[in-house]
């Protein structure tokens, strides 16, 4: 037996020696390891939010949108528009891709022709505003007539109509090297090596990509905005919230998202700074407008009055967040700061329901013509949606609406349930990424032709008219007034019952200095090239 004892002691000693052999924490080269909850599946042809964050590091675009929603030039040094609002003459600044080749007008044209290719899977609808784009997308033209190379540094865009969101919606597409795109078979886009080893004109070069593990980025020395201060950034996939917290405290990672429950304890953390930004996700539920009971606006308003939003925030997010009254992100200029939304007023809700002809039955459930007010509330299976659904069920029950909640698995939800003609009665869901001009998302959800509006069969001619007018004016003051009216109409007509917008909380090790003005999730990832190490 003594041999075994000796072996055990030796193993223990070895283990102790090993504990000290790890890399010294908090020191070493100035690389930042940022924990992320999911890695992109694809870099090109994907609309995932995480792909957008990776794009912020590796790619650059002609123009970008600052946190307030105002357009700024990126690869475009000058971008004047003709008086009729249809022709944009974009002059490129001196910039280079990560392989050292300069960014030229030819690259711009090739990139847009990729995004408009008949076989490109995720063409942004705004790109079809470019003259000839629809024909090209339909396979009826050999090139996009509205994009022409004037000289290597200048490219001209011609639009079908004076679309005011050129800089915000069209100019924000990543510019990729034409040489690399030439060899890509777009029908087999995801199989091309470029999508795994992309080359862009952004501040970081994608150096290493490990599935379900991490993506490593190295600073690009040729970046037009100057080489980023941190030579290396790693996005490391950690699915479990509690693991992120432990790793952040132990110093094994440098930044990570913190659940609201841990916010207070992290404020006392000596090594970790806490950054709280308004979330890009806001939650809502909507009725199916094909059901007669929801066609009465008083019923929808009653539901909006019945929800105790501050309590939802306290109960589910430790009060870290805001009550959502507008579908527009509060950081954008289109957001109406004077908007009066719904407070918690169950008495008013009951009164509105009574006016609509609903009277309490013996069991407290409202009735009308002998029919009880019973509805199914379906939601995408997941912690947040479920917790909210349970609270909403309770709030609606309190005013006499009997709600049966039902979790629906993701595949079923998007494949069958959340589709036009789907079996929706009430549906609970969320919006993401509200940092672009809100126009396209408003159209998608509230214009009668929008895919989201079709799902709940919502159609309001006044809303359609306001959304059309907003797109036809380039006068900022007029636009602002129109968006204020749109937000007011969302409140009055209640196509969606908006609930809460939880904050996003980041913990960042204090040896990193972050730039100011980060006010969204997207802004956080976009700020990484401007991080410095102490």
């Amino acid at each position: 037996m003594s041999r075994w004892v000796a072996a055990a002691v030796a193993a223990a000693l070895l283990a102790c020696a090993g504990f000290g052999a790890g890399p010294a924490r908090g020191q070493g080269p100035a690389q930042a390891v940022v924990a992320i909850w999911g890695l992109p599946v694809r870099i090109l042809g994907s609309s995932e939010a995480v792909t957008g964050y990776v794009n912020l590091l590796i790619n650059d675009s002609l123009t970008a949108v600052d946190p307030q929603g105002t357009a700024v030039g990126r690869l475009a040094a000058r971008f004047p528009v003709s008086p009729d609002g249809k022709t944009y003459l974009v002059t490129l600044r001196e910039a280079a891709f990560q392989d050292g080749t300069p960014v030229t007008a030819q690259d711009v044209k090739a990139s847009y022709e990729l995004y408009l290719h008949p076989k490109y899977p995720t063409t942004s609808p705004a790109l079809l505003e470019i003259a000839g784009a629809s024909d090209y997308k339909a396979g009826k033209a050999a090139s996009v007539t509205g994009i022409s190379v004037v000289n290597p540094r200048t490219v001209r865009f011609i639009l079908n109509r004076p679309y005011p969101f050129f800089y915000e919606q069209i100019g924000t597409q990543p510019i990729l090297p034409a040489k690399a795109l030439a060899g890509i078979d777009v029908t087999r886009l995801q199989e091309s090596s470029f999508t795994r080893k992309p080359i862009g004109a952004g501040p970081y070069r994608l150096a290493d990509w490990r599935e379900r593990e991490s993506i490593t980025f190295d600073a690009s020395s040729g970046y037009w905005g100057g080489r980023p201060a941190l030579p290396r950034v790693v996005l490391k996939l950690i699915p479990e919230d509690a693991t992120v917290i432990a790793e952040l405290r132990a110093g094994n990672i440098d930044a990570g998202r913190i659940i609201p429950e841990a916010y207070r304890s992290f404020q006392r953390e000596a090594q970790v700074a806490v950054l709280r930004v308004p979330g890009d996700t806001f939650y809502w539920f909507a009725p199916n407008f094909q059901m007669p009971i929801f066609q009465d606006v008083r019923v929808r308003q009653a539901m909006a009055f019945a929800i105790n939003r501050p309590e939802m925030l306290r109960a589910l997010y430790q009060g870290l967040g805001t009550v959502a009254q507008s579908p527009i992100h509060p950081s954008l200029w289109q957001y109406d700061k004077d908007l009066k939304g719904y407070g918690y007023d169950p008495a008013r809700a009951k009164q509105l329901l009574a006016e609509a002809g609903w009277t309490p039955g013996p069991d407290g459930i409202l009735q009308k013509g002998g029919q009880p007010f019973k509805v199914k509330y379906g939601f995408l299976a997941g912690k947040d949606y479920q917790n909210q659904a349970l609270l909403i069920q309770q709030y609606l029950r309190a005013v006499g609406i009997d709600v049966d909640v039902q979790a629906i698995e993701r595949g079923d939800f998007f494949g069958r349930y959340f589709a036009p003609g789907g079996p929706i009665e009430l549906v609970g869901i969320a919006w993401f990424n509200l940092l672009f001009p809100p126009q396209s998302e408003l159209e998608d959800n509230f214009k009668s032709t929008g895919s989201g509006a079709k799902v709940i069969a919502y159609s309001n001619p006044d809303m359609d008219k306001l959304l059309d007018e907003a797109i036809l004016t380039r006068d900022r003051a007029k636009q602002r007034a129109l968006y204020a009216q749109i937000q007011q109409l969302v409140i009055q007509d209640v196509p969606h019952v908006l609930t809460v917008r939880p904050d996003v909380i980041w913990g960042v090790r204090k040896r990193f200095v972050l730039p100011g003005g980060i006010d969204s999730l997207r802004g956080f990832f976009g700020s990484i090239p401007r991080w410095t190490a102490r």
Partner: protein
Amino acid sequence: MGTYLVRRLCALVPLVFGITAITFALLVLAPGDPVLFLIPPEQRGAADLAQFRHELGMDRPVPVQYVSMMADLFTGRLRSFSDRRPTTRQVAEALPTTLILTVTSLALTGALALPIAVVSAVRPYGLVDHAATLFSLLGISLPTFWFGLVLIYVFTEHLGLLPASGIRPTGAAGYSPLVIWRFLVMPTIVQALGILPVLVRYARSSLLDALGEEYVRVARSKGLAERTVLFKHVARNSLLPVLTVLALLLPFLLSGSVIVESIFALPGLGRLAVSAALSRDYPTVLTTTAIAGLLVVVSNLLADIGYVYLDPRIRHG
């Protein structure tokens, strides 16, 4: 033995086809359209769904889809729906982590289970036996995710001794034991805890049975040392049922534990399979089930072969 092996290996083929066919049928029957999964709702107008369906081969009859996917799988040309990379490559990336974790947790289990079982069996209802019973009960009752989080809380968050996420340091490549062992400590303990109690209980009762046999009394009456009786005669005979249990537990480890992989952010087979199933990535699901099925069948086969070496009376033929 040779013909036995050949027969068993031949039986593998219909088995793997059976497993994958049932899996595929379940996938097709489950609600959710893989094509709609790949294209977000707001872009469905611009994208040509029928074209997309055709490119994925989803416009063909279901049996044809299955047969062509299986043919592609065996030639290594099968590509995932979501990232369009060969599924064999996805599995090749995930398999090392799962295999390493299986080996380490099996080793830890073996190293602990046998001594504990021997002491418990030699002195039944003694202090060690009672402690082992209590521990087994605890081990079976503790939820894996909770135990994993407790370990992380103590060893990462408070003591700062061990990393809690990943299989290797960021930037490191390969699976050198010197580099990855710190990352394996906690997942190994959690995995082992799931199977250790079962193994200890089986080994103990099987040892107790063997200790009551007549040949033990004979061996003792011959004047053999207790150690020789125990390790030469009893242990070998009582290992047989333990091996069976082990063969049944192995699939649990090999298919990759989603919970352990999620808590410790390990890029293993379990998470690959589950995320593929959730996103209706038929090719990846088929490949992971085929690989997992194959591993299970092969490990059962190894256990059967192991019987022959432990008990020469067993002859396959």
